[in-house]
């Protein structure tokens, strides 16, 4: 049996796994979980798979992984023969990638939470979440600005890694939670760079780049 991904179409975290598998050309079997409105992720059948009741979950044979960042690391290690998505030979590079994987969690807790509030009506102190999300986005903007000085388009270098995939969804989706990108020119350029990657797939709230289909101008 191949890979199975317990998935929810509107989950930015599940999208991380879908996106990396698309970029790596990995086949998998999606299993849709009725997160909303059914709340299936908190019901016994699903809790038997992931007691934490969170999505996504990746199952590969006997292995079950319940954290989107861990899933990215696993997929890259197992399926990326070029060793560019999660290079581990240089401890400094590995350390920096792990730092951004942890940072992705802060995006989920702030911008991701604001989105769940605004989109699905989940209870939250929304003003606080938005303020905190802007603080996190300012950190990301500052780092991407410095990467730009170095001539690097991505979080840890000139190539994308799982760090970029981990931070991309909830940054790109933040307008769904009332947090726009007007103040963040470096983030805007980075989001476009990721959307231009060969094999990129979209999700609701992240439209594709229609400009890639260029037309002859009349």
């Amino acid at each position, binding site marked *: 049996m191949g890979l199975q991904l317990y998935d*929810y*179409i*509107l989950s930015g975290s599940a999208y991380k796994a879908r996106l990396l598998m698309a970029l790596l050309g990995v086949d998998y079997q999606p299993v*849709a*979980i*009725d997160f*909303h*409105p*059914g*709340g*299936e992720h908190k019901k016994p059948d699903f809790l038997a798979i992931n007691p934490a009741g969170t999505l996504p979950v990746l199952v590969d044979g006997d292995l079950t992984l319940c954290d989107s960042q861990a899933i990215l690391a696993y997929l890259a290690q197992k399926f990326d023969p070029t060793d560019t998505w999660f290079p581990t030979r240089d401890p400094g590079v590995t350390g920096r990638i792990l730092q951004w994987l942890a940072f992705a969690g802060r995006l989920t807790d702030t911008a991701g939470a604001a989105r769940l509030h*605004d*989109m*699905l*009506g989940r209870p939250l102190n929304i003003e606080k979440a938005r303020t905190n999300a802007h603080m996190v986005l300012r950190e990301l903007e500052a780092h991407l600005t410095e990467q730009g000085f170095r001539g690097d388009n991505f979080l840890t270098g000139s190539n994308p890694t799982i760090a970029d995939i981990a931070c991309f969804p909830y940054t790109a989706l933040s*307008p*769904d939670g*009332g947090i726009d990108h007007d103040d963040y020119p470096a983030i805007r350029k980075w989001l476009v760079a990721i959307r231009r990657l060969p094999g990129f797939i979209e*999700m*609701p*709230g992240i*439209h*594709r780049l*229609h400009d890639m*289909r260029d037309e002859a101008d009349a």
Partner: protein
Amino acid sequence: MTISDVARNDWYPVAIENLLIEGQPETVVLMGETLTILRAADDQIKVTAADGSECPLTLRYGHVWSSIGRPEHALFDIPEAAEEGRRMVDCGPVRVKASPLRVVENFLDIAHFPFVHTDILGAEPHTEVEPYKVEIRDTVDEVWATKVRFFQPQAAKSAEEGQMTDYMYRVPAPCVSILYKTSPPRPGAWDVIGLFVRPISEELCDAYAWMALYDEDSNQTDLVQFQQMIFLQDRSILENQIPRLLPLDPKMEIPTRADTTSVAYRRWLKRKGMTYGAQLVAR
């Protein structure tokens, strides 16, 4: 602000019937008023206003319907809901920071398919909207658009190539739109997709999608998530139209023939005096 009678005295969705758990009240806001929905131990569902008074109640199409006023009419009928062989799918509420009327109007629009639902409901270069028929049916006081055809790149999961798909649209109430669409497994029949909108305020609403499909194969959750995917593609559009209220005076806009349903809907709202969620003077 005062809420016009036509807005007050109508039915709105307040909950999904199946998801109400006995003894666990849910609260929602309907046009600024907080309502509590409770399935009691005797399995009876009740809707109560903040002052404790009981609100009108109708259970239909998988949803709990209520009102902050006194509806003088029964909830609109969807005859297809009673047809044998259909599968009912409740897709859940999605919140949108826009006028409920904008959400309904967008649901009536096909010209955006190639740009907003790319490669699903539409695809360039198949962008042309052929003339279709729109009428306000006075006998039932509803807006109908018929003979709507649009190119769909992948009408069914099994379909290899795109094809022209037929649609009909029906607006039986200001905050409700019903779409009829060629059923892939039964080419002669229509699948029915309803959008039931609850105004929270004039610029904020919850939209519940509901489907009655001829489909024996698909996984229920896959169907729900397909519909959520489509609606969430629309959501960022709806939240970024200026103004947030739906203009009843189109002075700042340029409707063309492809917008005929939109104009008919707005005319109908104007005639009914449905001003909740509407902008009266163009700015």
